């Protein structure tokens, strides 16, 4: 294995600035908990914690994979559409082809992987900018889902085993889908922060050319992150169908933007190279708590969106002050 550490090393941040972003986010999360515990009824309960976690799993899966994509300096706008396509194909495999639900779930993941391969091929092989590629597949995947279902077909009657994954609780009151998110988080944390692959992914984000000269297989790494992104979209489709008990062509609309928000709020630079998986998780929690807390405190739902947007600008503004390199 080449030593990717030498490739395009980031300008080493001073120790005190290094964890500032995550520290501030953690403070924000704690402040939210403290505030809503007073302002909201039934906020500070294990039941509500479970509800917050349950509602965050699909976006969380997408955001974890997007962290790796954005670290390479890329973006994947197609994940919400791919979720929709995977969900309806899974519904069709189960209802029309009478495949067992486990196999149908594998179909969803396979569809996600296939979508990821298409994105990766265009980005890594043809060198088309990821924003453009995934804007195209954003339309393509959603469009295939719409065409396939004739715009109206809705897949329901999923078996109890699947619905348990989305609606049931494990011993201890943990929502059944939360372990999936935890597993995915551990996987992505290890991949990004503890393997040469993760170092390579960051190096690509800082400078694809430099990474190539350092012996990092750039195309293979890009393939990996986009395929993982697709696979997570497929997995999120399974969880989505299990939680709502239905799969329509519009499943997951707009999820890509929620996921990107969590990643960027979590401190990952949209230009690549800098960012952490635990930052993304904190960003995800901060947004989820805000939505849930404001609802329980009888505040208008729109306030959550407005505050999220303001936080997002505040977060990148703060990042910029701390010394984000500019690429104007």
């Amino acid at each position: 294995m080449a030593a990717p550490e030498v490739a395009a090393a980031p300008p080493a941040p001073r120790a005190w600035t290094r964890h500032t972003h995550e520290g501030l986010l953690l403070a924000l999360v704690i402040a939210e908990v403290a505030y809503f515990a007073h302002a909201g009824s039934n906020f500070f309960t294990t039941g509500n914690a479970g509800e917050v976690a349950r509602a965050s799993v699909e976006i969380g899966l997408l955001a974890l994979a997007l962290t790796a994509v954005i670290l390479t300096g890329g973006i994947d706008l197609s994940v919400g559409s791919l979720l929709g396509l995977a969900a309806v194909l899974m519904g069709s495999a189960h209802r029309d082809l009478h495949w067992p639900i486990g196999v149908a779930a594998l179909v969803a993941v396979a569809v996600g992987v296939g979508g990821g391969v298409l994105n990766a091929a265009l980005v890594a092989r043809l060198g088309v900018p990821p924003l453009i590629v995934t804007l195209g597949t954003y339309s393509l995947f959603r469009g295939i889902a719409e065409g396939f279902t004739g715009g109206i077909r809705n897949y329901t009657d999923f078996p109890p085993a699947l619905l348990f994954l989305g609606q049931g609780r494990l011993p201890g009151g943990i929502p059944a889908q939360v372990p999936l998110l935890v597993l995915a988080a551990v996987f992505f944390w290890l991949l990004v922060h503890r393997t040469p692959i993760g170092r390579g992914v960051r190096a690509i984000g800082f400078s694809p050319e430099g990474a190539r000269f350092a012996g990092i297989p750039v195309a293979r790494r890009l393939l990996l992150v986009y395929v993982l992104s697709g696979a997570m979209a497929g997995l999120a489709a399974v969880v989505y169908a299990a939680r709502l008990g239905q799969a329509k062509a519009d499943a997951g609309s707009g999820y890509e933007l929620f996921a990107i928000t969590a990643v960027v709020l979590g401190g990952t630079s949209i230009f690549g190279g800098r960012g952490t998986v635990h930052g993304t998780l904190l960003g995800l929690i901060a947004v989820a708590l805000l939505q849930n807390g404001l609802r329980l405190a009888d505040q208008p739902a729109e306030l959550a969106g407005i505050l999220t947007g303001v936080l997002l600008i505040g977060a990148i503004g703060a990042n910029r002050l701390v010394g984000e390199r500019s690429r104007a």
Partner: protein
Amino acid sequence: MTRGLGRYRRELGVAAALAVLLALLAVKAPAFFAGANLRDLLVANAPVLVAAVGMTLVVLARQIDISIGSQFAICGVAAGLLAKTGLPMPFVTIGVVAAGAGLGAINGALVAGLGLPAIVVTLATMVVLREGLRWRTEGVWIQDLPERFQWFGLGQAGGRTAIVVAALVVFAAFAWGLRRLAAGRAVYAAGSDPEAARLVGIHPRRVIFAAFVFMGALTGLSAVLTAIQFIDVQTSAGAGLEMKVIAAVVVGGVAISGGRGTLVGTLLGVTLLGTIGPALTFLGTQAYWERALQGAVILLAVSTDALPSFVRTRGGA
């Protein structure tokens, strides 16, 4: 730099694709070319063209704006509310365009002033503006609009003509300005190399700010041209407009890395993507496949661009 027509390879490619589609329609479904259908198509796509002109400026300056769907919704509501105060329609239009310019200036200030990445800034303003509008209006449509609101009070035929003429005037003015005015060339310069542009005395930040302001103003005009086609203003209008417009601009050959592309390409992109949906209906296919086909067209357009350089550098990549 490629010379002659080679420079317009993408524009020619899109024009050829459009020609093939129209030829297919001429053979299989001549009814497509009925006057009423073509007029509907023009009226439906005129507001998209106006927004796409603004997006062309923004992308040429190496930026992006995904908040225009939300700006569009706010401007539509503003048009309805202003008209209800009894203001004459020309002033309503001016007011809405100014409001749009103001919204664009927020993006411009955050991107050019603070140096924040455009995609994140406009993602944030998209959410803030959309949710803010929903909060204020609680999703209620603007109804009971005065008579002179719909079709500018010109009647259906006159109003439709006015919409198409307005879009074409905007298009022609910006196409001329981008080619012939120093300010237009400055957009290309700032987009292709901000540092070089600075050294020849252009202020890239001012150019970027101006591009966002124009984007907002044109989104406002686009919202007016859309709103007057109906008797109510929906507060949820414009959702997804940003993707549609960016797609048209990209298909038309404007490089997302800035500095390259033409408004003629954008016009072709808007026309091609806008024709696909109705064409599917006329060819007897389900219209549900429209979005899939649009996606395929985007991917095809950008891939054919990349293919020659891919073949050349294959060994190295």
